[in-house]
C-alpha cells in the first residue's frame, strides 16, 4: 500500500504540466482554440506525440511507451488542470485502448503506431440516441459481406467524430456486440460535426452499408467494451480531479482578493465554510480516483473500481463545479472568466460514460453480495 508517486512519475507530471502550461496557462488561449474546428490545437497534439504521451499506454513493440495506468492518470489530471481540449482520453485511452485490447497484431502495429506518432486521431463511435451508457450496441448493425462487413445505422454523439480519421465502431452482431474499424473516407459514411457546451466537438455519424473491418477476431466484444469503458471512466475521473483542483484554487484566490462591504470575501464564514466543504469533496474523490488506477494496475476488478471512482467524482464534480460559480458570483457565469468553463467540462465528463446515479445503481445491485467493502482486499487487490 503506497500512495506516493515515484521520481519518474513526478518527472512525467512536471513535463506534462510544463507543456500544457505553455499551451493553456492563459485560459484565453483555450477559448480561442475551441472556437475553430477541430476544437483542439493540432500543434499541441503534435507536441504531446513528441513527448510520447499519445502512445503512453501502448506496448513498445507497437510504437508505445509501455506505461501503466498511473502514468495515464497523471497525464489525464494535468489535462484537467487546464481543461486542455485535446482528445487524449477519447483517442488514446478509449479508442486506442480498444485497439490494443482486441486488435490483431497487424491492426495494433498499424493503428497504434500512427496514434502514438500523432498522425492518426481515432474516435470510438459507441453512443446511440435512445439508449444510454450501455456496453452493447443496437442502433448500428453489422452484416457480413464476403471477407468483410458493412455497417448500417447511426451513432451519436461521437466525441471528435468529425475530425477522426479512423472510427472504432460498436455494432450489433449475432449473439452480441462486435467491434469494427471504419476509415474516415469510407463510402456510405456521413459525419455531421458540431460544438459541445464544453468547447469540444461531437458528431452525428451515419452508416449506410459502410464497409468495415472486424477489430480482432470478431464475435461478441461486450466484455472488452465494458473493460475499456471502465478504464476510460477512471481516466476521466483523473481529468475531473485536475479540473476540480483548479476550480477550487481559483475560487479560494478569488475569495482572498474580491472586496465587498469594504472587506475581502474570505472574511465571510458563509463563504469560507463552503470552500472548506469543496476541499473535503475534492480530497475524497482524489483518493478514490488514485485507488481505482491502482486497482487497474494490480489487475483487480477494474469495472467495479471504475464505478466507485465514477460515483465519487460525479458527486464531487457537481458539488465543486456549482459552488465554484456561486462563490464567484456573476463573473462565474461569464465566458470571459475561466471558472465557468471548468464547470461546463465537469458537467460533460459527468455524462459521457455514466453519471453518479448510474454508477450508484450498478453498485446497489451488488450491495447484498458482500458484508463489507475492503478496498485493499478482494476483488480489488488480487
Amino acid at each position, binding site marked *: *500500500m*503506497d*500512495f*506516493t*508517486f*515515484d521520481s519518474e*512519475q513526478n518527472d512525467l507530471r512536471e513535463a506534462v504540466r510544463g507543456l500544457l502550461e505553455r499551451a493553456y496557462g492563459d485560459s484565453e488561449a483555450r477559448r480561442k482554440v475551441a472556437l475553430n474546428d477541430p476544437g483542439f490545437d493540432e500543434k499541441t497534439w503534435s507536441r504531446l506525440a513528441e513527448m510520447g504521451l499519445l502512445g503512453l499506454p501502448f506496448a513498445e513493440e507497437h510504437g508505445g511507451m509501455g506505461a501503466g495506468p*498511473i502514468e495515464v492518470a497523471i497525464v489525464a489530471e494535468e489535462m484537467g488542470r487546464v481543461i486542455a481540449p485535446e482528445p487524449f482520453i477519447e483517442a488514446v485511452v478509449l479508442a486506442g485502448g480498444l485497439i490494443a485490447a482486441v486488435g490483431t497484431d497487424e491492426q495494433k502495429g498499424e493503428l497504434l503506431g500512427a496514434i502514438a506518432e500523432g498522425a492518426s486521431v481515432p474516435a470510438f463511435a459507441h453512443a446511440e440516441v435512445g439508449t444510454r451508457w450501455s456496453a452493447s450496441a443496437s442502433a448500428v448493425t453489422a452484416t457480413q459481406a464476403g471477407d468483410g462487413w458493412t455497417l448500417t445505422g447511426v451513432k451519436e454523439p461521437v466525441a471528435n467524430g468529425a475530425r477522426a480519421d479512423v472510427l472504432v465502431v460498436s455494432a450489433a452482431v449475432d449473439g452480441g456486440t462486435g467491434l469494427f474499424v471504419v476509415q474516415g473516407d469510407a463510402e456510405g459514411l456521413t459525419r455531421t460535426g458540431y460544438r459541445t457546451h464544453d468547447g469540444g466537438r461531437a458528431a452525428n455519424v451515419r452508416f449506410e452499408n459502410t464497409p468495415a473491418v472486424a477489430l480482432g477476431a470478431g464475435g461478441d466484444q461486450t466484455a472488452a467494451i465494458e473493460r475499456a469503458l471502465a478504464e476510460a471512466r477512471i481516466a476521466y475521473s483523473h481529468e475531473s480531479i485536475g479540473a476540480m483542483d483548479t476550480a*477550487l484554487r481559483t475560487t*479560494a484566490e478569488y*475569495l*482572498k482578493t474580491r472586496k465587498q462591504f469594504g472587506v475581502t470575501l*474570505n472574511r465571510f*464564514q458563509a463563504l*469560507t*465554510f463552503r*470552500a*472548506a*466543504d469543496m*476541499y*473535503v469533496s475534492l*480530497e*475524497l*474523490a482524489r*483518493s*478514490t480516483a*488514485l*485507488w481505482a*488506477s*491502482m*486497482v487497474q*494496475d*494490480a489487475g*483487480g476488478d477494474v469495472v467495479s473500481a471504475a464505478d*466507485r471512482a465514477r*460515483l*465519487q467524482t460525479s458527486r464531487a464534480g457537481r458539488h465543486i463545479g456549482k459552488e465554484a460559480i456561486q462563490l464567484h458570483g456573476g463573473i462565474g457565469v461569464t465566458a470571459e472568466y475561466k471558472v465557468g468553463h471548468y464547470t461546463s467540462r465537469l458537467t460533460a465528463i459527468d455524462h459521457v460514460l455514466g453519471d453518479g446515479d448510474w454508477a*450508484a*445503481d450498478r*453498485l*446497489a*445491485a*451488488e*450491495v*447484498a453480495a458482500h*458484508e*463489507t*467493502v475492503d*478496498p*485493499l482486499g478482494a476483488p*480489488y*487487490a488480487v
Partner: protein
Amino acid sequence: MRLQLSPELEAFREEMRTFFTTQVPQEIRDTVAAHRHVSKEQYVEAQRALNAAGLCVPHWPVEWGGKDWTPLQRHIWREEMQLANVPEPLAFNTSMIGPVIAAFGNQEQKERFLPKTANLDIWWCQGFSEPDAGSDLASLRTNAVRDGDDWVVNGQKTWTTLGQHADWIFCLVRTDPTAEKKQRGISLLVFPMDTPGVTLRPIELIDGGFEVNEVFFEDVRVPAENLIGEENRGWDYAKFLLGNERVGIARIGTTKRLLAQAKEHAREIVADGRPLLENPRMAARIAELENELVALELTALRVVANSSDGKPHPASSVLKLRGSELQQAGMELLVDIAGPLSLASFAEEGSDVPDFARVATPSYLNYRKVSIYGGSNEVQRTIIAGTILGL
C-alpha cells in the same frame, strides 16, 4: 503507487485480526456490536488484555510500552480493533494524557503515571470544557492560585465524559489571569477525583444514558508536583493533545461494522413483499454510504502515509469531519431500517422487537455528539479554510 499491502503488513493485519477476535472476551465484543452499555469492568478487562499483549499504547515512546510502528501499522491496528468490536483503549488515558505526560512530564511523573495509565489502573477524565468555554476553550475561567506548596483550584468543568468512573482528572486551569493573550495564562494540573472539594453531577443525555458530567471545584488543594510541564504552557499541551484526539477519530472500522449490520437487518424486514435490502432506494442508499466510506478509508490511508513527524496532516480535519458524518449516517440508516420498531426503545422482557431496533434511536440521538466533540465540525471547517486554503 501500489495497492497491495506488503507481505509483512498483510501478516501484521492477520496477526491483529486474530488477536482481537480471539483474545478479547466475546461477551465484551458482543456488547459493543449490539450498541449496549459497556460497563467500567468491561472497559478495564478489554484494555488490560490489550496491554498484556503490548497492543494498548503502540503510539507511545518505546520505553513506556510503545511499538515504534509506522502510521500505517497504527491505522491497521485501530481499524482491525474496531472491525472486531473491541472497545478501544480509553482515549483519555492512551490518546490524551498519556502522550502529554510522555512528552512534557518529568521523569518522576512518567514513572508514577504512565504504566498505570496504560493498564487502566488509573481511569482518567478530561477537565477541559466549561459552561462558557466550549469551542472557544481558551476562554476557560477555572483558576488555580498558588498557596505554599499547593495550587488551590476553584471553578467548574463540564462535558466530562465517564467522569463517574474516573480516579483522576487532567484539568486546564487559569494560573495567570493577567497574561496578555488568554492562551498564555493556562496550566495543566492533574489530581484525584476524591480530593476534598471535588464534586460531580451527572448529566442525563437525550438517549436516557449517563455519559457526561459536570465537575465542580471548591478550594481543591493540589500539590505543586502535580503540574504537568511548565506553568502557563498548558495551552500548548492542550493543542498537542487535541491533535492526537483527531487522529483515529474517523472510526472507519466502526462505521463499516454499522453498515454490515444494517444490511443484515434489512434482509430480515419485509417491505412490500420483499426484503427491504432489495428495495432499490434502500440498496442505493447503502451503496452510496459504502462508497463514501471507501473514499474516507483511502483518504485516511493517504493521510497516515504522509504524517511523518508525528504531527497530524492538515487533511486530518477531513477525516474528523467526514468520519463523524458517516457514523451519524450509519446510525440514521439503522433507525430507518427499524422503522416503526424503533419506537420500542426502552422495551424490556416480553417485547418481540429485536435488540437492534430497541437501541437504534437512542444511539442515533447519542451520536449527534460525534460532530461536536473532538473539535466540532465547524471548527474543522475553520481549520481547513484557514490552514489549507489560506482563507
